[in-house]
């Protein structure tokens, strides 16, 4: 079966700056693929190339088996897209806006059915389609953006930061929509800088940084969530004693211990891998406060960069193998 999205050696240059370096990306049919990376990594550039909004400087792009430029409007009818920066302006109501897109992207005679689906989605997400779109809040505009992408049940959904501006409840509903789309056989390519969102939905992930893919694989293998920052306030303890207790635990790095008001001891550390040994050691003390934080994406990507020598080596062998075939 051919890949739904097949990008090879995609290069995009704007003047002297290079937005994408030799990007390879394959998305299998019926899967959810997550593209993560910090702002400016090239996520939006990649997604816009798939829709022929921008054109590659070099390399090949195939979407649903066709080149976006040659496939034109007919190909884009098979794709639903939420742009990274959604601007909805004008006096038109959400309903009329969606009716327009249902007309241009739906099949003949399907407009009514598509609008029915749109109303259903609007109910689920909780947005009033009778109001002029410009009067909607950012989150509600984003809901309309999601509806216009999902309503005609396209074979492929390309979603650029789809949950930005949505409250947590709606984000959950959105994740359900993505899972339903996959169950219905649709393919989803999702970009985000929110790790948890990708972890909850994606089958496969690629991490993009500075226009290159620095890591890829299934979510678990990337071990993106394996690092934690912990901050603890321990009541009554000896600094040296506490240090000795935690220093020896495998995976604990950057241990900082200081005295606080009274006899309290403040402890901060980064834990790589299992958190259990740390928690077990902690149990001996009186814990007054405890926070465990996930690292932000920037940090995770930087860590992956640390592994990028290995990633580059893998990349090179894969390429030479492909050339050898």
């Amino acid at each position, binding site marked *: 079966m051919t890949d739904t999205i097949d990008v090879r050696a995609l290069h995009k240059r704007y003047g002297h700056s290079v937005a994408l370096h030799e990007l390879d990306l394959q998305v299998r049919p019926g899967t959810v693929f997550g593209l993560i990376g910090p702002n400016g990594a090239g996520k*939006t550039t990649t997604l*816009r190339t798939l*829709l*022929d*909004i*921008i*054109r590659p400087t070099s390399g090949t792009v195939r979407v649903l088996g066709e080149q976006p430029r040659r496939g*034109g*409007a*007919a190909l*884009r*009818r098979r*794709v639903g*897209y939420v*742009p990274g*920066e*959604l*601007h909805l*302006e*004008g*006096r*038109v109501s959400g309903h009329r806006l969606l009716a*327009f*897109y249902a*007309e*241009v*992207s*739906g*099949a*003949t005679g399907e407009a009514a059915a598509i609008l029915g689906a749109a109303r259903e989605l609007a109910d689920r997400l909780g947005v009033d389609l009778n109001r002029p779109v410009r009067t909607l809040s950012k989150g509600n505009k984003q809901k309309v*953006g999601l509806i*216009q992408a999902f309503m005609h049940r396209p074979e492929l959904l390309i979603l650029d930061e789809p949950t930005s501006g949505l409250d947590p409840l709606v984000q959950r509903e959105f994740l359900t929509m993505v899972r339903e789309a996959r169950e219905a056989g649709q393919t989803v390519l999702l970009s985000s800088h929110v790790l948890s969102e990708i972890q909850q939905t994606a089958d496969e992930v690629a991490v993009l940084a500075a226009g290159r893919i620095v890591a890829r694989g299934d979510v678990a293998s990337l071990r993106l969530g394996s690092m934690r920052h912990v901050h603890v306030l321990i009541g009554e303890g000896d600094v040296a004693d506490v240090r000795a207790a935690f220093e020896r635990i495998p995976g604990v790095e950057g241990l900082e211990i200081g005295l606080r008001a009274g006899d309290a001891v403040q402890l901060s550390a980064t834990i790589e891998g299992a958190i259990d040994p740390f928690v077990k050691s902690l149990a001996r003390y009186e814990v007054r406060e405890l926070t465990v934080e996930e690292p932000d994406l920037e940090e995770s990507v930087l860590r992956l960069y640390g592994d990028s020598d290995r990633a580059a080596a893998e990349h090179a062998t894969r390429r030479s193998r492909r050339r050898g075939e």
Partner: protein
Amino acid sequence: MSGILPVFRRSMHESWRSLLGWTIGIAAVLFLYLPLYPSFGASDEMEQLIDSLPKQLVDTLGYNQIASGAGYTEATFYGLMGFLLLTIAAVLWGSSLAGAEENGRAELDLAHGIGRSQYALETALSAFVRLVWLGLFAGLAVWAMNGPAELELEPLRIVGASAALVGLAALTAGAALLAGAATGRRIWATGVGAGIAVLGYILQALAKQSEDLQWLDALSPYSWAFRQSPLADGVDVGGLVLSWGIALALVMASALVLRVRDLRG
């Protein structure tokens, strides 16, 4: 498959209120100026006043013919206020393509089942249809006041004058559209559209000042429309064909140019 001309229909639906406003504006100008003709343009005092003004000024404003109904209608409306209003409308509507790209609407539209050329062509069609409406309405209003204001115009020549005015505006809109299609920037679209209109007006004004500068008329779209008085002598068919022809060529070029480049994000 989508219905016929979806982008055009959406544009018309979204702009009918504003079009109504423009129509009222043109009606206001016409109903303000034309009824004054019997007491103003055709009066002896006016003739004396005009005789006392510098000849260059009178020529530039087209007031040398103001004592006839045709000359008065051209000097006040077709060559001045009507030209101004339709030019502003043409620049605004011609820039809407670049505007859509700047505000992100084009990205969403063109991610759907709409082709790039189709997008440019239907945007142009919407601008042209609205300009034609304004020209048609102006012609009807002039015709309606022809008798009451004692203008003594030939009805067929009113059609010619409106066609010349709309052709001139269409050329301006086409220039704005092409600049927008090429750059994706509204400021360029507006600048080029307005620039072409102003330049055309200046060139014809200079051409009127001396025999040596008359060749400038050949470069001025304004001259193509109005050098031969469309109301007094009948519209210059060559000029009419030229302005409409260039307007259409600019639209075609816009459709091609928009296809070949990246959209701005």
